[in-house]
Each structure stands twice: as structure tokens, then as C-alpha cells.
């Protein structure tokens, strides 16, 4: 049975490009201190960073919760924002509704959600138009377990 060892929540604000990426930097720093396998840290880092950038680009604000358990790491992002009208389309690599300004920041090329899914052992995306989006990703600590 999964035992939760550590839980941290972070607030991420929409349009806050200046501080975008700080949550994922903090999460990966925690994992490095705990000497978690670098491959796992890389995957958690990509998931958190991409999710954080999605919040900054599209949502008003979000709570990013990082949960370390004895057998997995989970990242849950619940935002207040416009929601995603067509999840299937949003999951297609290359599909994006980003503005030119977002692309100038280096993001919005339609790879964020596919990158999150690719790095997750379990991935759930739920969205309600006009309300917000919830992304859940978990990564097993023992890939062979």
C-alpha cells in the first residue's frame, strides 16, 4: 500500500513569465536532496515544468501539488482558467493555441501536454470549459516494480 512521505503545494500565477519555472526548480531541488534517481528527477522535472508553463500561458492561477510516496511521485495541477474544449486535439503533438508572444518565450509549440504524458506512468487530464483544468501525473519510483 502506498505511503505518503512528503506533500508540498505551490501557487502559480497566470502570465507570470518571470517566475515561471521556479516551482519545478524547487521540486527537483527537493528530489536531488533526497538523492532520488536522476532519471526519475528528469521525468518529474519535465512534467512539472511543462504543467507550470501551461498555467502561466493559459490559466489565471493554479495550485501545483507535489506528493512523494514510498513507491511513486505524483504531480497534480488544478487551475482556474478557460479550460480545454477538445482534449483529444490538445493532446496532439504540434497542436497549439499559443500566441506569438508565448512562442517568443520559447513555449506554445504544442509539445507540453504530450511531454507530460510521455514522462508519466499514469496521466489524467480533466477539463471544464470556463472553469479550469486538472492534470494528474504519477511516476513510479521503481520502474520495474
Amino acid at each position: 500500500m502506498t505511503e505518503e512521505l512528503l506533500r508540498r503545494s505551490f501557487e502559480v500565477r497566470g502570465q507570470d513569465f518571470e517566475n515561471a519555472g521556479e516551482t519545478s526548480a524547487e521540486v527537483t531541488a527537493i528530489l536531488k536532496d533526497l538523492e532520488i534517481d536522476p532519471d526519475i528527477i528528469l521525468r518529474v522535472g519535465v512534467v512539472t515544468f511543462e504543467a507550470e508553463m501551461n498555467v502561466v500561458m493559459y490559466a489565471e492561477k493554479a495550485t501545483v501539488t507535489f506528493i512523494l510516496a514510498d513507491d511513486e511521485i505524483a504531480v497534480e495541477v488544478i487551475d482556474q482558467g478557460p479550460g480545454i474544449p477538445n482534449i483529444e486535439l490538445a493532446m496532439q503533438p504540434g497542436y497549439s493555441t499559443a500566441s506569438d508572444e508565448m512562442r517568443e518565450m520559447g513555449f506554445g509549440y504544442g509539445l507540453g501536454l504530450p511531454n507530460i504524458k510521455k514522462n508519466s506512468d499514469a496521466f489524467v487530464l480533466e477539463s471544464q470549459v470556463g472553469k479550469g483544468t486538472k492534470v494528474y501525473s504519477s511516476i513510479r519510483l521503481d520502474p520495474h516494480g
Partner: protein
Amino acid sequence: MRLDAIRDVLQCEVLTGADLLGTDVDTAVASDAMSAVLAAPHPQALMITGLTNIHSVRTALIAYISAIVYVRGARPDEATIRLAREKKIALLATALGMFDCCGILHRHGIKGAT
């Protein structure tokens, strides 16, 4: 290929990380899209990009990138250089374009990250 050799063949200025130029690199990723870098992470890879904002360094940190080459004469601001210095990521800048950088490095045996 060592970073100091990459500096020489791409005619780079070293913006920070002069003490890191002994690092060996065998793989590179080239893009202005940071998600493309994150889609094919390779520990110790070199990032070649025209994107100079702080997200280039934040992406490098997440993807275990050892050094960034900024192309087309683009240069990051002081805050970006400071973060790279703090996190021990070498930053180089060249007047060459991305295509030329990739071609030169490929000829010297650097592989693309897949």
C-alpha cells in the same frame, strides 16, 4: 568533444562557465522551442538556441544540459547569465546561425538527441 573545442570551432564568446570548458559533450539538441529540448533530454547534452530569456537556462536545468550556445549573435540578459553561473551551466554565444552550428558540430561527431 570538449566545450573548449566547441567554443573554438563555433567561434564563441564565453559568457559564463570558463571553468566548465573541460566538460565532454557527445550529443546536442537545437531548437528555439524549449518543449522540443524537453522532449529529447540527454544528460550533459549541449543546447543550441536563439532563445535568450531565462527559460533557456531553466530548461537546461530541468534537462541536465551542460552548456548552451546562443546563435545569430543573440545574447541573454544579466539575470539569465547569473542563474547559469549559479547553477554551473556554461553559456556561449556565436554570430553563426543555428544551421551552421549544427552542421559544424555534426561534422565533428556530435550526435543529435533523440
